[in-house]
């Protein structure tokens, strides 16, 4: 905290990641599916992925603000449970793209849209199959200095700049220039 906050749990095989593991840039986002700021930054992340291609690995971790956002937890559980059926990113994208429609009732519709087994999804959530993972994300976030949602870490350092495409691009480019 004195100086800058650092990621205590580096990105690894446990994570939902897009892009090569050996990419020179790793962007980790701690997010909440019901948070409008996370919704707003979702297209920014996609643009960054397009701009940096194979140089960027993007990792998403859950940080549901359950006190502020009543549907954040069920959304996180749904995304993780969809992940157990091999469709984490598809559900992640759907949740953010259609964030305005987010409420518990919409989940069966989203599952059908993605061809998921709704009953299995519901059972796994009810049995706590994804709870440990979400807790682990949350704890790692707390320890790393997550200070709201979205919180980004660029190559392990918390990003405290503006969450817009230009500002993030500048930082990512300077990280690239600085790396060996």
């Amino acid at each position, binding site marked *: *905290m*004195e100086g800058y*906050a650092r990621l205590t749990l580096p990105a690894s095989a446990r994570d939902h990641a897009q892009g090569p593991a050996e990419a020179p840039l790793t962007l980790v986002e701690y997010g*909440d599916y019901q*948070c*409008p*700021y996370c919704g707003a930054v979702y297209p920014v992340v996609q643009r960054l992925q397009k701009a940096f291609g194979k140089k960027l690995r993007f990792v998403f971790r859950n940080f549901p*603000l*359950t*006190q*502020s*956002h009543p549907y954040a937890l069920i959304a996180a559980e749904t995304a993780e449970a969809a992940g157990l059926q091999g469709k984490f990113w598809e559900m992640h994208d759907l949740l953010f793209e259609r964030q305005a429609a987010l409420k518990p009732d919409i989940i069966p519709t989203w599952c059908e849209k993605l061809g998921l087994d709704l009953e299995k999804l519901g059972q796994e959530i009810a049995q706590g199959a994804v709870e440990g993972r979400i807790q682990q994300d949350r704890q790692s976030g*707390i*320890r*790393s*200095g*997550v*200070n*709201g*949602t979205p*919180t980004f870490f660029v190559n392990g350092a*918390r990003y*405290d700049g503006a969450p817009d495409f230009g500002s993030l691009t500048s930082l990512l480019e300077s990280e690239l220039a600085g790396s060996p």
Partner: protein
Amino acid sequence: MTALKPGIKAPDFSLATTPDQKVSLSEFRGQPVVLVFYPADWSPVCSDQLALYNELQSEFAEFAAEIVGISVDGVWCHLAFSKDRKLHIPLLADFEPKGAVARQYGVYREQDGECERALFVIDGAGVIRWSYVSPVGINPGADGILKALESMARGWQ
């Protein structure tokens, strides 16, 4: 003005939290207290500092730590803000004299008429054990607070 450092006894205070309730630091003697000084209610983010600490109640409860927010806003403002953001953290009004408690802690921004974004962790004996002033535009998160509470807990074993 510099924030009070660890080792110093935390100045006692008594501030209104609602129109008919006051909270004093001394009433928490025996348990750790986290003071969260912040500039103003109604910052335009759903995931601001207070929302974050509100989310981490179970983590703070592990240490039996009391956490309170302090700004120069008045009690009615605090009530409306607290209700809007569903906060369980008491918000104290350092309203009259304006910023008096913040001044005692060395965290009043004269030029703005608001508190710094400052954290103090105080032990059960009323001594400051950790303090941190964040740049006012940066939310310091909770990791520093939790580290301080943990090292205090270890020290008591």
